[in-house]
Structure formats: C-alpha cells, structure tokens
C-alpha cells in the first residue's frame, strides 16, 4: 500500500467520535464549525431536497466548494457521483480533504465505481454489508459509512446496515481459515481484505454511520451500535433550529453512552426535519440501492 493511502486512512481516524455535517453554503458551514462539527460535506442540495425535487443530482459548483473551503478551518468533503472519475478529478484539483463517492447523487456509471487508487485524495464510500464495504476498500476507499437512507430523517436503514456489517464481521470471525476463500467468493470481496477482517475482527478503515440521522438520540444509537462517528445530512439544516440541533448532536455523539447528557441536550430542540417512512418510498427511489 502506498504511503498516501495510509495517510488518508489516518485522517479518517482523526475524525473519530465526531459529526460530519452536510452544508450547502458558507453560512451553514460556519454554523456547523461553530457547533463543533469535525468536518463539513459541501453539496448543492441536501438529500431531502434531492429526493423531493428529483432530476439528476451532480457534483456541486466548484465556486460553492471554494467559498465553503475558505469559510472554515475544519476539513471539507464533497460528493462525486458513483463512477464519475472526472468529477473526482475536479474535486481533487480543488484541494478539498475528502471525496464522498455517493449514492445520494445520481450514478454516472451503472457498472463500475471509481478506481480510487488513481487518486491522491481520500475517498469515503457507502456500504450496506461487509461485502460491499470490502469491495469499496478494494477499490481504494480509505473510510466507510453505512448508506442508510439519506434524506428520510429515518434511522432504520442506517441501523440495518450497521447491524448487518457487525453481524457479517462476527460470522466471518467464527470461520476456520480453510473456509475463507469460499466466503470470499460468496460475498464478492477481495481475499486479502477478508483475511484482514478475519484476523482483526474489524474493518481495515474507519466506519461511520450515515443516512437518516435526525436527532441526538439517533446519533448516540449509531455510536452504541459500534459506529465510529456520524454523518448528518438533511437532519440539521432541514430542522427548525439548526444551530441548537447541530450542537446537541455533537454532544450526544461524544457522550453517546451517557443518557443523562443525551436527555439534557435533546430538550426543547423544536421540530426535526420532515421525515419519511421507508415503506412509503417507491422501490426505485431508494438511494441505498445505487451502487453494488
């Protein structure tokens, strides 16, 4: 592995225990930093608006990304479409800190994800299970997040994906060495990474939760399930009091195992974002199904 890849995994380690917030302009980025976010994700529309408005969702305007980069001192991330390696090249040229190859944007390639080892800049990718996580890491992702179901304000999918990854790791760890190649074939993941997880009982990169986190208790729930940090998309700036909610989610992420603190920060937060039951979403409109 190249030294840069190690450094990229290291940056994700520095984000652990923190909250990464979606922002659509410099003003929101400043609010996020002020609230204690460890990084911001620059994008043109938050997932709930992408879901409502439909159409093709693409990488953000470089001007917007530059403005956000200038307004804060914490790391700046931005999204590229699945498989759109030129959007990734553009984001790398803008010298941001992390690229999210994201199912929230409309995929640009229905066969292949980006060959992330061609880049110096780090990538985070979504996953629903161990096989998907290891395929992305095999392509060069230096951080993983659950896909969840972005823009719904409903944490159920993030929980499902985190539990699935945990269960997959537990069942892999229980196998005998001679079973690893067959398991590799079954989950469609690289053998060396399967072996790594078997030996270490964990992913080789940091794993955050994303997709549907809307309250401080949601964030703490994901942390107690073993997530190493959280992404909050629409949950903050689509709620009625973003400043207060952002601060509360940061504190609940740090004190995830202290219900008294979670109770205290959850008080009087006003309305959460407009939320959706997953069963009410048309099968073809699920973001988590994008990518493989």
């Amino acid at each position, binding site marked *: 592995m190249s*030294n840069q890849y*190690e*450094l*990229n995994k*290291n*940056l994700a*380690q*520095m*984000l*652990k*225990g*923190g909250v990464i917030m979606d922002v659509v302009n410099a003003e929101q980025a400043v609010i996020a*930093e*002020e*609230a*204690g*976010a*460890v*990084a911001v994700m620059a994008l043109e529309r938050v997932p709930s608006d992408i879901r409502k408005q439909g159409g093709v969702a693409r990488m953000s305007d470089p001007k917007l990304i530059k403005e956000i980069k200038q307004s804060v*001192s*914490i*790391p700046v991330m931005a999204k590229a479409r699945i498989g759109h390696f030129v959007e990734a090249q553009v984001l*790398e040229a803008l*010298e*941001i*800190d*992390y690229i999210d190859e994201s199912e929230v944007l409309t995929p640009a390639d229905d066969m292949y994800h980006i060959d992330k080892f061609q880049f*110096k*800049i*780090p990538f985070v990718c979504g996953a629903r299970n161990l096989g998907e996580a290891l395929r992305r890491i095999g392509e060069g992702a230096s951080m993983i997040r659950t896909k969840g179901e972005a823009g719904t304000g409903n944490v159920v999918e993030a929980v499902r994906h985190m539990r699935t990854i945990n269960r997959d790791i537990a069942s892999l760890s229980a196998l005998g060495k001679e079973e690893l190649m067959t398991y590799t074939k079954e989950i469609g993941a690289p053998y060396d990474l399967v072996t790594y997880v078997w030996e270490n009982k964990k992913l080789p990169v940091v794993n955050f939760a994303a997709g549907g986190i809307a309250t401080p208790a949601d964030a703490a729930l994901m942390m107690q399930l073993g997530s190493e940090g959280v992404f909050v998309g629409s949950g903050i700036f689509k709620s009625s009091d973003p400043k207060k909610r952002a*601060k509360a989610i*940061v*504190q609940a992420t*740090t*004190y995830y195992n*202290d219900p008294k603190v979670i109770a205290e920060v959850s008080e009087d937060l006003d309305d959460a974002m407009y939320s959706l039951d997953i069963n009410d979403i048309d099968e073809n409109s699920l973001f988590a199904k994008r990518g493989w």
Partner: protein
Amino acid sequence: MKNIGILALQGSVEEHRRMLEKLDCRITEVKKPADLAGIDGIILPGGESTTIGKLLNRCSLFAPLKEKIENGLPVWGTCAGMILLAKEIEDEQPHLAVMDIKVKRNAYGSQLDSFSTKEKICEISKQPIELVFIRAPYVSGISGAAKSLLTLNNHIVAVKEKNMLATSFHPELTDDLSIHRYFAEKMI
C-alpha cells in the same frame, strides 16, 4: 501502576489507548471533571481542535483541566492537543493557553499535503522515529521555558516546557512506542 488519562471527547483516543496498554499503564478516559481525579498524567489526542475545544467548554472540563496542568499535571498533546495547549494560535483564540508557544493550524495545507517521515529526536530516542503529519500544525514561535525538541524544514514540530510536551505529529498512528514511553516513564 501509573494512571494515565486520555482526553476522550473526540479523535485518536483508541490509538493512544492501544499504545499505553503495551506500556502496562492504567488508562482513564477523561470525559467529565470527575475523571480527572487520580490521574498521574494526561494525553490530549489528535482530532479536530475546534471540536475538542468547544466540547471542553460545554462539559465544564476547561477550568479544572487548565488548573491541573498549571499545577504540574504532566500533559502531552499530539496535533490537535498541541493546539489546545498553545498560548497563541495564529488568527484564532487560544484554548487552554498553558504553553509558551505560538502555533499555526493546518500549517502545511489540506489533506493532499499530509506526509510522514523519519527523524531522530535526541531527547527521546537514539533511533529515528516515524513521524506522521495529518493536516498538521507547527510551532511558529516559542518563548519562556519552552524548548524545541525537533525542527523539521525550519519549523518546530516538537516542544517541551516543564510538565508539558507537544508534538505536531501522531506517534499514536505508528508502532513506535518511544514517545509514549518517554511521556509515561520520564515525565510522569
């Protein structure tokens, strides 16, 4: 057995824990003022200094931690931890403001400018040590009793002042125990 605290608000807490476990120390994760009782030293880990700084204030750890350090509690800050200790931060308000150093945040640029290298730090080890810099700060000025331990490309990246040690880089991301051993055995 020495009881070493790790400030556990955000960042590379597990990484420091993994290193200290190899040195046979007792480890206390510090999240609340009560956790400060009984520790013989404390590590301020890597992470985001703005996040950790804000949480220090919100959870009422700021004043008691500052007081303990001023009264001689051994402390070591790595990267974000160095920023927390500094009396001066370029273009920003300081946090604990206990160490006579001025630091520049993200001094090397974005993640694309993160790097690693090997250097000898005479005070600490005879062998070169692997140094990992992630969006790292450096020390742009020192005064008082602060003493530079390592200069890299004309910038100070490791400093000691009485009971305080600060490094721009992250020994917790390597397998080299030298600096952890130095802190746990020589400074505590």
